[in-house]
């Protein structure tokens, strides 16, 4: 009885811990977005106020013959416009001259067009002069006008500066208040998390935890999978350690993808169990979870043949992968509540971060249809990073890539392991990639384990050599 209550309490604490962590990460991610929005609004307001000032001072400045920066840009645009206009007119004139030449005698045409070109030049000069006059000092009492302009400009600028300073102070205050509020909230959440975590660890039952070694993340025990008469996986056991890159190799038909499908629950294994260290205090049996709950435990997989949503942009594809991270319910989505909008913004920022890491930013708004295969493979990889992965399962990530892309992939896989603190478990045929990136390799043949060890050990293993090269041992 006491044990059951303990179990229930632990479950409740875990649930609470997850919720608190979600809230904390949301707050941490949303604050920069909020601050940026406030700053952007402020910048827009400043630009608007300056424009308005320029407009208010335009009359007095013209009267005083002072070229304020606003007037200067106005004048130069007017001049540039005239230049442009007359350039086109000259072109049109040349063209009509060409047409006329083909019709009537040369002398006449040349004479007429000489006159017309002159007229055009003259008109242009007149226009330019009129612009010059418009912005030149007017007649009359210049000194007085200048003085009046100076005073008025000072007044207007002082007023605007005061207003802008007030607005900036207000924005700063809002930002400071928000930051402080968010920080106290995050701190509080952090304390709560620490407390719940400590409680969890203090009460952790050694019974489940002792099931697998402290440093391993996934332990496959005596896994067998039989399809009718075919034994695809035969009594296989191995451990994946936390933070390593684990490779599974074997000839075609050795049962590698079957193992993946068993771990991600697409297949029900005939016998055997998969134990997974979900967090510091909990070891779970993956056999008890349905397919769509596997990602919630932190296990994400890719597919051998790319399986994207072809109607959505790359960005939206990444958001699909973040499906389990959303906390807004159906009615929130139906009414597009502010909560959903904030969440979407946070997810978008995160998706852009992931796209940036993988160098996919130019494709963010593209439809995957028609993109090169290497890019599609990378998008699959990007998708795994959206939902707080702890174990990333890659099914032949290098299939169909050329040598250069494979080299890039090797760097990327290591980078993902380091940046996202994830363990990577991959199946691959490309021996170069496997030997390059993997810390531990497990070689299988016809569902049976041949050897497990470091790349060097595997390379020198007799059984592996005979399975791959057919050498007699």
């Amino acid at each position, binding site marked *: 009885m006491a044990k059951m209550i303990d179990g229930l309490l632990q479950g409740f604490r875990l649930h609470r811990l997850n919720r608190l962590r979600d809230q904390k990460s949301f707050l941490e991610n949303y604050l920069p977005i909020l601050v940026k929005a406030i700053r952007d609004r402020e910048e827009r307001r400043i630009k*608007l106020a300056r*424009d*308005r000032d320029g*407009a*208010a001072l*335009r009359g007095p400045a013209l009267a005083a013959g002072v070229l304020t920066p606003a007037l200067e840009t106005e004048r130069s645009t007017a001049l540039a416009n005239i230049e442009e206009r007359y350039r*086109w007119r000259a*072109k*049109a004139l*040349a*063209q009509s001259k*060409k047409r006329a030449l083909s019709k009537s005698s040369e002398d006449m045409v040349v004479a007429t067009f000489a006159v017309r070109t002159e007229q055009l030049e003259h008109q242009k000069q007149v226009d330019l002069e009129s612009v010059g006059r418009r912005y030149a000092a007017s007649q009359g009492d210049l000194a007085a006008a200048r003085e009046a302009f100076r005073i008025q400009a000072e007044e207007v600028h002082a007023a605007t500066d005061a207003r802008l300073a007030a607005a900036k102070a207000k924005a700063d205050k809002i930002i400071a208040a928000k930051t402080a509020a968010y920080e106290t909230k995050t701190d509080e959440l952090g304390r709560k998390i620490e407390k719940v975590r400590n409680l969890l660890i203090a009460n952790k039952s050694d019974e489940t935890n002792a099931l697998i070694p402290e440093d391993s993340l996934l332990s496959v025990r005596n896994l067998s999978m039989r399809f009718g008469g075919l034994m695809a996986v035969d009594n296989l056991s191995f451990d994946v350690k936390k933070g390593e890159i684990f490779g599974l190799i074997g000839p075609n038909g050795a049962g590698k993808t079957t193992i993946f499908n068993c771990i*991600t629950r*697409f297949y029900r294994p005939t016998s055997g169990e998969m134990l997974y260290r979900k967090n510091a205090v909990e070891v779970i049996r993956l056999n008890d979870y*349905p*397919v*769509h*709950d*596997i*990602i*919630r435990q932190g296990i*994400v*997989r890719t*597919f051998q043949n790319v*399986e*994207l*949503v*072809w*109607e*959505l942009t790359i960005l*939206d594809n990444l*958001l*699909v*992968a973040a*499906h*389990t991270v*959303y906390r*807004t319910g*159906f009615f929130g*989505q*139906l*009414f*597009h509540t502010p909560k*959903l909008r904030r969440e979407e913004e946070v997810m978008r920022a995160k998706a852009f971060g992931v796209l940036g890491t993988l160098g996919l930013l130019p494709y963010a708004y593209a439809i995957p249809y028609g993109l090169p295969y290497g890019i599609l493979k990378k998008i699959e990889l990007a*998708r795994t990073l959206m*939902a707080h992965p702890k174990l990333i399962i890659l099914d032949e990530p290098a299939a169909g890539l050329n040598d250069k892309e494979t080299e890039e992939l090797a760097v990327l896989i290591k980078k993902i392991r380091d940046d996202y603190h994830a363990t990577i478990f991959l199946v691959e045929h490309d021996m170069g990639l496997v030997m390059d990136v993997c810390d531990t390799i497990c070689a299988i043949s016809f569902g049976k384990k041949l050897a497990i060890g470091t790349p060097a050990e595997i390379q020198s293993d007799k059984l592996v050599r005979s399975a791959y090269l057919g050498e007699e041992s």
Partner: protein
Amino acid sequence: MTTLRLSFDRIRKQLAIIAKHPYFGFVVFGAILVVLRLLALGGIIPNSLMKSLVITMIYAIVALGFSLLLGYAGLASLGTAGFVGLGTYFIGHFSGTLGYPFLATILISLLGAIVLGAIVGFISLRIEGMYLAIITLGLSEIMREIFKSFTAFTNGVNGLGFRDFTLFELEVSEAAVDFIVIFVFILLIIGTLNIIKSPTGRALLAMKNSDSAAQSMGIGLMKYRLLAFTLATIYAVIGGLLYMMDQQFSIPTTWSLDFSLNILAAVVVGGAQSITGIILGTFTIFGLNMTVLKEIAFFREYPDATWIVSGMLIILITMFYPGGLIRLLLAIKFWLIKIWKKLKRKWSVYRYGEDD
């Protein structure tokens, strides 16, 4: 003067931002419909035209629900007619015969829709594609038989009338019903837009593309298939309620396979994933013969010949624009832009000569 220009600039920029909002087009569409209805009230446009537009809108609501099912979740159903029929009988029986308050009727209808949708959703977990279509067709036919025989509820083959509709103890006139239909139509369009632009819509699309990928990303098939069917059923039942308010009469023969097929055709012809496309498709299948073709003398003489036109349209569109009318519309738009650019270029060469 310059200040004025600046403020105009500001207003224009604001308007441009508003016009970019996804709801904008549909709200304007609703406003146009309201204006049309007002014009019909004033006798400027014929009342019959308005009548056919309103019934088209009701069918478009049903088609919207169906598009969530077919275009997003990728599930085929031929049971739409039964659900719409059920909606008509819900309001006809509870509000009309029994005289329940309107809100109670709506509640009962929504509950009924959710239960029915969930049942069909469960069936869809086991059966897919063509077989699912056949099973839903069977379900619809069973419902039609029930409509025929369960006379206490439906008044059987004689049809159920629904007159003197009151809402909060106020008599609702025909014009008011039309305004209600327009309001609900625009509201449901916005609701659909919200759903398809949210995680749920993306999850439905992911499920349509690949079951296994969707599941590996945490999208439970059961939840989302049930959701898709429930939503489609709710839209169909709402369509039924509005149909009864508008037509004031419902008879089992209306809710046959023809109706389901027409809704399917409307969604496929319009473009299963675009709301504009669905409105266009519904208008093509239902509205066209009621509004345009009826004015032509030939079709007045042979009214059934309008089906030939619809059939030919379906064949042509599915042959040349499998993405639906919306693709055709986009193609025309791009074509016009291309022509415009070409003309501009020609004029420029004529006037100014070739580029340097």
